[in-house]
């Protein structure tokens, strides 16, 4: 029997109990739409956090002295880079590199009269375009200049926590390269609000030369941070510095903890995907089984007309496929609409949720969904596949009916 005629039969069968068909289709559609939204959010969280982290903290590439260890934030001369200008000049010759800038990191303690907080001190070149995101995020005061002798930038959240304003004086303590705690008084010249709570609570920015002076590191830096025009070009730039004898760390290396955490989290979401899919499968199987039970005598008639078990099975599978495809079409529509909305409006989860990710995850407090077409295709195919698998039992049941017994059915 030609397949398209079986398809007609299957399709009309779905019209018999419109309400049931609609409800089943709705279940498929909602299931798919839910998964699309969920996966789009996760993609949004992953990608946004990663980009935030690259933008504000790690850059795409870092060049460090061979012995530098990020955990220790060592200020020992041997662990630092002496001549960053050469490296920066070399980086500037590469087309892929957008900007290269030296940075000196140190752990510090900021103290006011009443309170103190542990911080990360960034000695930076304030003129570098690498810090454009922070320049844009400035909410109070002005940006630091290279020759600022006592000016620092802090996050607005930290300022609020410690009750500080622009112009406030604070004491900053840093343990220097000799292990001596050095204290200096600074004045807050500006505040930024990047939307990344962990950054806004813990970063203190000052001019590189000032930081070098405070830490006794002379003209040494912790790293040279590179920002690329295209993230995909990372490996080419890595190759260019391979012979430098330095640690060349990519954004993957630098965000390793984050990426691993996310991958672990993904396993949980895959489980959620599977559960939703299974629920959809059970609904489909139930609908088809009911429709087989209601039509046993009719199957007997079809069988008397010479239809084989195989045809009846195909018919049921076509019914499942129609049901599923219609549900998938609706689900894609719903899902895309929802994702489109959430990709622009986002959902504000509040900063407490964002901070809960800890230091390694640069989560914004508003999370935006992200379009992930390949994931939608995958989910749609998985939905189709699982509904067909769910239809196997009803289809097999129909195929193995004895014509005589089926005809006797009232």
């Amino acid at each position, binding site marked *: 029997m030609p397949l398209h005629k079986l398809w007609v039969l299957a399709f*009309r069968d779905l019209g018999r109990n419109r309400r049931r068909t609609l409800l089943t289709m709705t279940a498929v559609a909602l299931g798919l739409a839910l998964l699309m939204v969920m996966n789009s959010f996760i993609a949004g969280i992953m990608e946004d956090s990663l980009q935030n982290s690259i933008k504000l903290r790690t850059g795409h590439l870092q060049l460090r002295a061979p012995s530098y260890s990020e955990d220790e934030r060592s200020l020992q001369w041997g662990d630092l880079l002496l001549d960053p200008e050469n490296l920066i000049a070399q980086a500037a010759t590469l087309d892929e590199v957008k900007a290269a800038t030296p940075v000196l990191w140190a752990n510090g303690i900021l103290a006011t009269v009443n309170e103190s907080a542990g911080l990360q001190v960034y000695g930076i070149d304030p003129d570098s375009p690498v810090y454009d995101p922070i320049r844009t995020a400035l909410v109070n005061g002005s940006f630091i200049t290279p020759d600022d002798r006592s000016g620092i930038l802090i996050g607005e959240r930290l300022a609020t926590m410690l009750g500080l304003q622009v112009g406030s004086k604070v004491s900053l303590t840093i343990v220097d390269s000799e292990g001596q705690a050095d204290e200096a008084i600074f004045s807050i010249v500006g505040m930024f609000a990047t939307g990344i709570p962990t950054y806004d609570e813990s970063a203190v920015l000052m001019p590189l030369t000032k930081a070098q002076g405070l830490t006794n590191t002379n003209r040494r830096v912790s790293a040279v941070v590179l920002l690329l025009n295209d993230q995909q070009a990372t490996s080419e730039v890595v190759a260019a510095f391979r012979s430098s004898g330095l640690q060349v760390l990519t954004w993957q290396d630098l965000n390793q903890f984050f990426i691993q955490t996310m991958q672990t989290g993904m396993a949980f979401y895959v489980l959620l995907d599977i559960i939703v899919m299974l629920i959809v499968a059970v609904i489909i199987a139930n609908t088809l089984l009911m429709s087989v039970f209601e039509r046993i005598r009719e199957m007997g008639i079809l069988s*008397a*007309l010479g239809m084989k078990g195989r045809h009846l099975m195909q018919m049921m599978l076509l019914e499942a496929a129609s049901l599923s495809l219609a549900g998938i079409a609706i689900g894609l529509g719903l899902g895309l609409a929802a994702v489109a909305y959430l990709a622009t409006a986002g959902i504000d989860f509040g900063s407490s949720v964002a901070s809960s990710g800890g230091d390694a995850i640069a989560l914004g407090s508003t999370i935006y969904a992200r379009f992930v077409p390949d994931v939608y295709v995958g989910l749609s195919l998985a939905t189709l596949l699982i509904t067909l698998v769910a239809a196997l039992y009803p289809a097999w049941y129909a195929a193995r009916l004895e014509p*005589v017994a089926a*005809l006797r059915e009232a």
Partner: protein
Amino acid sequence: MASAVQLEHVSKRYRIGTVETIALDKVDLTIAEGEFTALVGPSGSGKTTLLQLIGCLDKPDEGTVRLQGQDITRFSANQRADLRRSRIGFIFQFFALIPVLTAYENVELPLLLSGVKPAERRTRVHALLKAVGLEDRARHRPDQLSGGQQQRVAIARALGPQPLLVLADEPTANLDTANGQQAMEIMQKLNQDTGTAFIFATHDPRVINYARRVVTLTDGRVIEDSALAEHAV
């Protein structure tokens, strides 16, 4: 005439729990091509069971069934489906149309199963609907047709693949006198025009009146088999 169906010592038993019913008991019966035969007998005498064996819907427990001389007793489910598709038409007491298909599509269905080409299919379906007086009802669904009309669509459907024989199990039981008579006349005419053999299982004296041969069953045995002379209706 050549024999269409031959049953030799055919027995069929049903078992429910420990109770065994002998539905057919060593039946010998030959149906020739082009016959118009009534199968009568009290309720439970085995008429339906016999039609199911002749129609390759079921297998006997004992004995041999031959279709046009071919032993089909041990045929598989798929082989029997092929035989039904190509050589047997069925008409049931309930009108047995597929509710989601129109009259036209119901008649077309067995032709689709047999792979008849579209042009040929159209011609045959129209001719059959005309023969049962329902050309103007082609686009109607079964629920838009009267019982009599539905049964006539079923007759047209049974004849579509030009079968060797049509088996009708109490075809008039749910029809009033006028509709019953109309259905019988149509079948009689189709029998004469196409040479397809018809076998009816029936209690209906009006149907028996049309038959040219009457086989009487009691307790699963053929107790009488009388060929009737051509007689006026």
